């Protein structure tokens, strides 16, 4: 146990005590803060010119309504509170001056009388024309009706099976946000395990190490050190995200996440689109832990069969294919509407760690099905460890450099031939 603890500590310090780890984390922290606050940063450099916060409208009122400018201002400002419309009366229209005037955005001329007006709209934002004219029309109707226009109360009722496409998109975004760091973390962890083992094996230092500690202890210490690494690195990434969120609050004028109006915190919104998110989160964490263990066992097993660094490149390719397969299924299946396919893949242990959390979040897999997939994954992991451990013991001291499949076959044969005895 003492040697196991020492090996875990040594393996962990070897990873997080390196300059490369510190530099990589500095880069990740800076990038996280920059990416999350990118719109705000762009806005700082004048990137918010296009955002219509204040709109200046000039009105030439030749239809005899004394309160036209005030009424129009009230009418326009019934909408989005983030945009304010200033409407002022001017005596005559100088169209050429208007086009050159950077302060004024829209010019309207009202000719004729109230019952039969001719309205000309000059706008530097033609995309708003339809909306503006609707508002003007409503105002004129209220004049013609002889009373003040009261905005009716609108209520909408959705069909019970209606799915909000925006919420679906949000779930998709959350899935992508979830799977990407998981993919990066698992890739990093498996790389570390593989490189660590192959470094010891290719230099033959493994002979001295295995002469002092059992191969099982060595095998497990590598995996446990990597799991700790994943936890530390994952925690750091969350911490960078938190710092980035705090920084984004400094940029009050340009909030990054445009949650639907009237909503509260992100968690409240999550609660609306994913009512069972606490269970989902727990299941996701379980899939991450078991899945990372599963991939690490495979990485360690393949690394033990490789002899040189070059050799390891070939041996790690099946693992990378598994990881990439899971990643692409998790990212693209929801977008392509392949829920059925994703559900099937979520039960395949080599893809389950990446696909199952996304499938559950997207609703193509129930929590119960998720639990079944998790149990299947744990069972598969147990079988993997059962087979990997004796093979690792044989392979780690085997310097045979025969072809890929032959070497795998030979190592399994030797492992179980000896085990039987």
């Amino acid at each position, binding site marked *: 146990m*003492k*040697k196991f603890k020492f*090996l875990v500590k040594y393996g962990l310090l070897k990873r997080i005590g390196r300059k490369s780890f510190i530099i990589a984390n500095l880069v990740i922290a800076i990038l996280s803060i920059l990416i999350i606050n990118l719109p705000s940063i762009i806005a700082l450099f004048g990137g918010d010119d296009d955002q219509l916060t204040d709109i200046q409208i000039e009105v030439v009122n030749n239809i005899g309504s004394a309160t036209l400018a005030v009424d129009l201002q009230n009418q326009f400002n019934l909408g989005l509170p983030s945009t304010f419309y200033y409407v002022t009366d001017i005596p005559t229209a100088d169209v050429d001056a208007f086009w050159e005037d950077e302060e004024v955005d829209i010019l309207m001329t009202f000719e004729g009388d109230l019952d039969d007006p001719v309205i000309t709209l000059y706008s530097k934002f033609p995309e708003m024309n339809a909306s503006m004219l609707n508002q003007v029309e409503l105002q004129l109707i209220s004049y013609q009706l002889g009373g003040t226009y009261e905005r009716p109360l609108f209520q909408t009722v959705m069909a019970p099976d209606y799915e909000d496409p925006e919420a679906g998109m949000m779930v998709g975004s959350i899935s992508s946000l979830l799977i990407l760091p998981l993919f990066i973390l698992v890739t990093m962890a498996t790389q570390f395990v593989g490189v660590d083992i192959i*470094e010891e094996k290719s230099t033959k*230092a493994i002979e*001295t*190490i*295995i002469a*002092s500690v059992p191969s099982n202890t060595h095998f497990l210490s590598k995996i446990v050190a990597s799991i700790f690494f994943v936890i530390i690195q994952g925690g750091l990434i969350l911490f960078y995200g938190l710092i980035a969120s705090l920084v984004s609050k400094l940029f009050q004028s340009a909030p990054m996440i445009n949650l639907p109006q009237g909503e509260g915190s992100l968690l409240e919104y999550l609660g609306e689109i994913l009512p069972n998110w606490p269970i989902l989160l727990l299941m996701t964490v379980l899939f991450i832990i078991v899945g990372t263990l599963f991939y690490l066992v495979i990485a360690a097993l393949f690394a033990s069969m490789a002899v040189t660094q070059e050799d390891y490149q070939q041996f790690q390719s099946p693992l990378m294919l598994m990881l990439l397969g899971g990643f692409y299924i998790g990212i693209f299946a929801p977008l392509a509407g392949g829920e059925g396919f994703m559900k099937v893949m979520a039960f395949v242990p080599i893809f389950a760690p990446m696909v199952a959390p996304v499938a559950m979040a997207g609703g193509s897999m129930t929590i119960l099905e998720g639990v079944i997939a998790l149990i299947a994954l744990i069972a598969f992991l147990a079988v993997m460890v059962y087979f990997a451990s004796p093979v690792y013991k044989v392979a780690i*001291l085997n310097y045979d450099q025969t072809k890929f499949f032959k070497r795998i076959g030979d190592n399994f044969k030797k492992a179980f031939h000896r085990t039987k005895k």
Partner: protein
Amino acid sequence: MLEVKNARMLYGDLVAVDRLSFTIKPGDIFGLLGTNGAGKTTTFRMIMGLLEPTEGEVLYHGQHVGYHNVNEIGYMIEERSLLTKVTVKELMLYFGQLKDMEPKVILERLDYWLDRFQISEYKNKKIKELSKGNQQKIQFISAIINNPKLLVLDEPFSGLDPINTELFVEVIRDFQKQGAMVVFSSHQLDHVESFCEELIVLEKGKVIIEGRIDQVKKDFKKQNIKIKGDVDVEALKQIPGVFKVVENSDQTIVKIENDDVAKAVFEYIKTCQNITKYDVEQASLSEIFIAKVGKSHEEV
């Protein structure tokens, strides 16, 4: 005491080591010789507990060799087995702690051995920056840093110059004096002959020579007679029992089948002129090795 009892190691149908038995007592230096692929490394791995014999057993002080008594054993493999990206100090701390040693003790002993091997200035250098000879010294230090009671050395002198070889020999002798058991392999048979009391020669996993070196030499009937003076080589070749005559620049070596032939050669020498040397010697270990292993090859 280390006891290898009837150990047999099979890889599928291949017999790597066939019913090997020997005993090493405290203070013994034991040689394990053989051509490449004879089964030496497999035997070392069985002694270290890295391989479990298919049949037979290896006992260290009456117990099976395992991770419970591995801290008393030092092991040096034939090839370099060092992590190259770390410093000498970091490597020793790593390997030493794997033997349950305290870091403070490791560093004290490291300083002593670096000084003794005259490489103290490399303590904080990375392994990859060291010459092959110095890497060999570091590897040797890593095997003895835990003051082992059993020292297993696979080709410890490989790649060393004569001065450093002598340094290694002195250290091994020191361990012998302290009562450690040493088992080693070497292709340099003069080293084996100079400080090894007992040996085993393996060929294709089988023992072809075993016992104390003086007895092995005695049992090997063939002898060499070294002669200086005016002798007729053709006349020597005609003597029954003389199987080879080698002419060197300063002497003639007559290889004879057994002790009795020496008398016949001596009778002939008495008839020759200017004889200044007549010396009957036992065959060297190298000759015995070549003769036995060659015979084994022929038999196959």
